[in-house]
């Protein structure tokens, strides 16, 4: 092997990470925040964003309402029917879609740069003037119910539903955004209209635009199509109750008959994205179950024991404290053995600091992979959404290297110990 060489003729000076110099941030008078970054490398544009209209606002007997409303927006407006909406979009190879989350309802779309006015018009029309035509709503309801029937057969999804119930009893995070068959059945046309009337509004809305468009032009287009929108009824965001804390190991299982493989989820309530120890937890998570071929967990469960095709950890930090979890898909007979191996790794992770080399590896990975995650317009748009949502600051990606490098082995251990306890874990199993 020859020694490692440096560049094969690349030129670093031309490139820079997104920052205050090339991100335009504008707040429209009605409260909509816009972030725009130009990229002329491809003649396309991506839009992304959210509104403060998530499932937090749903009553327990109408779970799935926010997502139902989001999906119904494109089914007809006061100006265009379903057919006309999709004809407008698909004729030019553009796309637009909405989906309901817990805190927010998100949207995303893309088009060729020449069709951006069309995409903005449609975004504004579906957001502000949906018609909820009854025939379309009923058709959509059957589609949602079919998706729920398919979910009931999906071991990973069933493990995830059960896991959220174990980890978040009585907390909004225990509720599935797509609801249950009986709650979706119970939602009326009136519920959809009322939810839209109350919760859809410009306050708290984010609109990110990335691609072959000049920032001023994007802002003008948005101001023209959404600048007049007002909703004085929009309620204040709901504050999350504190997440419950598990006091013992709690393992539950749901049987999904006739399946070949079981899915296991194991973990605890993790940090919020804005928590001061988030970066330390994220680095720790990579060491635990991501780096290389799925970190220490992948090494133990997949590489050494050959028990699973996938076994990895993830840190789902968001506006609130999402789960820090480990997932594995294993043969039904190997479930207990896999859980034991995973718990051993969790124990090691909270008992002793990570190795200096592991920490250095993951830091290099986080810093080196950042430009790759920003390769496409979609990647940049997602990054800009996170900047605004978690108040990271426009210079966050430029400060990122320093933030990552500042994390010590002790920081990682403290974060691990704060969130993960090998004797206080939730364990959900779904399988035959």
């Amino acid at each position: 092997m020859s020694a490692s060489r440096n560049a094969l003729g690349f030129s670093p000076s031309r490139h820079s990470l997104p920052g205050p110099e090339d991100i335009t941030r504008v707040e429209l008078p009605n409260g909509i925040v816009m972030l725009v970054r130009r990229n002329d490398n491809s003649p396309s544009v991506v839009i992304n964003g959210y509104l403060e209209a998530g499932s937090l606002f749903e009553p327990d007997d109408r779970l799935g309402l926010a997502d139902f409303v989001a999906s119904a927006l494109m089914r007809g407006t006061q100006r265009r029917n379903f057919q006309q909406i999709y004809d407008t979009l698909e004729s030019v190879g553009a796309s637009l879609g909405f989906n309901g989350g817990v805190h927010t309802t998100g949207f995303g779309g893309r088009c060729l740069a020449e069709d951006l006015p069309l995409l903005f018009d449609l975004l504004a029309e579906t957001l502000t003037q949906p018609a909820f035509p009854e025939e379309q709503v009923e058709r959509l309801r059957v589609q949602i119910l079919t998706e729920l029937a398919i979910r009931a057969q999906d071991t990973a999804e069933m493990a995830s539903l059960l896991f959220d119930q174990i980890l978040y009893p009585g907390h909004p995070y225990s509720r599935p955004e797509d609801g249950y068959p009986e709650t979706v059945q119970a939602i009326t046309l009136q519920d959809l209209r009322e939810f839209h009337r109350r919760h859809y509004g410009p306050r708290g809305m984010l609109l990110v635009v990335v691609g072959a468009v000049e920032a001023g032009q994007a802002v003008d287009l948005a101001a023209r199509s959404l600048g007049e929108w007002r909703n004085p009824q929009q309620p204040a965001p709901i504050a999350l109750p504190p997440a419950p804390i598990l006091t013992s190991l709690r393992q539950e299982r749901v049987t999904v008959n006739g399946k070949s493989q079981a899915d296991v989820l194991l973990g605890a309530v993790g940090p919020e994205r804005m928590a001061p120890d988030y970066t330390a937890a994220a680095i720790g998570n990579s060491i635990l179950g991501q780096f290389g071929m799925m970190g220490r967990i992948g090494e133990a469960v997949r590489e050494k024991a050959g028990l699973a095709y996938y076994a990895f950890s993830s840190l789902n930090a968001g506006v609130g404290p999402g789960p820090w979890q480990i997932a594995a898909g294993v043969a039904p007979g190997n479930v207990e053995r896999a859980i034991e191996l995973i718990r051993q790794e969790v124990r090691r992770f909270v008992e002793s600091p990570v190795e200096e080399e592991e920490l250095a590896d993951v830091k290099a990975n986080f810093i080196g992979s950042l430009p790759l995650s920003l390769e496409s317009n979609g990647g940049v748009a997602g990054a800009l959404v996170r900047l605004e949502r978690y108040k990271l600051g426009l210079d966050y990606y430029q400060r990122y290297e320093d933030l990552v490098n500042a994390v010590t082995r002790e920081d990682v251990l403290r974060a691990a110990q704060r969130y993960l306890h090998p004797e206080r874990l939730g364990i959900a199993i779904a399988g035959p």
Partner: protein
Amino acid sequence: MTKPVEKTTLANGLMVLLKEIHTAPIVSHWVWYRVGSRNEVAGLTGASHWVEHMLFKGTPNFPPSVLDRAVSRDGGYWNALTYLDWTTFFETMPADKIDLALRLEADRMANALFDPQEVASERTVIISERQGNENEPTFLLSEEVQAAAFRVHPYHHEVIGDMADLERMTRDDLYNHYRRYYTPNNAVLAVAGDFDSQQMLARIEELYGAVPPGPSLDWQPRPEPPARGERRVTVEGPGDTTYMMVSYRAPSASEADFFPFTVMDSLLSGASSLNLFGGGISNKTSRLYQALVEKEFAVAVSGGLQATIDPFLYTINLVLHPQRTPEETLAALDEQVEAICAAPLPEQDLARALKQAKALFAYGSESITNQAFWLGFAEMFASYDWFLNYLDRLAAVTPEQVMETARKYLRRQNRVVGIYLPVGSKQQAEEVEA
């Protein structure tokens, strides 16, 4: 900022395609081998996919865990894929780190260890991967449909292989498969991104030029005889949802029919792209969505044509409406197929299919990884010119050609209808306090 593609063949037969793109400090490096499930016979099904896994299990120079740690440490994104006709390994890395990708791929082209213990532990990993697939009704159905469509040709079996073979294949079976197919003369190296072609080529010569060529390969799979009547397969399994797959024999990517077929697919089931990275678009104005989903025969429909060496399948996938039977739904589908066979399309439908294809092309070109993917992918079944001429060839398609293509391929005698019949679901929850 983008130069024309440079195409060279090294003395050992390795084809090299280089495309400079200086828009981001990224290089994407792909090695493509002309081997996939198409090259497998009974007893060795799944060998190509398993060999792909074994290439992550180390060489003398890059022991197993060293390999993936090295790429991850440098911020790289890497993976490998095995398909019907090919197996590919790629790394997308910061431009100043790409040398590692070259060194490790040149190394494992010839020096993978296939340690018996690693083979044994990977056997259970792959069996677990297959069991995960078997959890999906659509996998179970698609496996049976493919088997019914191909009695003779090796497209008969799934890429992951039959369970019987995964349980029995030996280390030597796998190693022989590796030595036979993983040779420079059976490979294509494609690199795109922020580099200087002259320097890159010199480095490639240095690293890959040293790999000895293998014997020349002349693998000709047994051709599938013509279909002589519709075949039906049913699969029963858990759940409450009925799925249907209607699979027609389709042209290979290098046949002229592929292009009118692509336009026909776009009209019937919506524009789809062959991009591995890059967004797609919805299909709600497609004829099948309008006739099947809007008329409540199905809750979802999708279709897709694959670019393959030998004729493969054009499959229409349906999730049935809970109140409908497979026969009713199939009859509604057949009405649409008959309509597309009956008369030439309006010109405006063609113009629209072309605009959609152009948009999908633009989305795919945002990513350097996807651009590098195309360099090699097109060479697997045609050549890079196929990709360069793709939009022009779509633009040249006439309404009459689409009608003729529909008449030629979308015949009942030419299809397999697969139905997944749910036998119901039962769930119980139990709590175990530990």
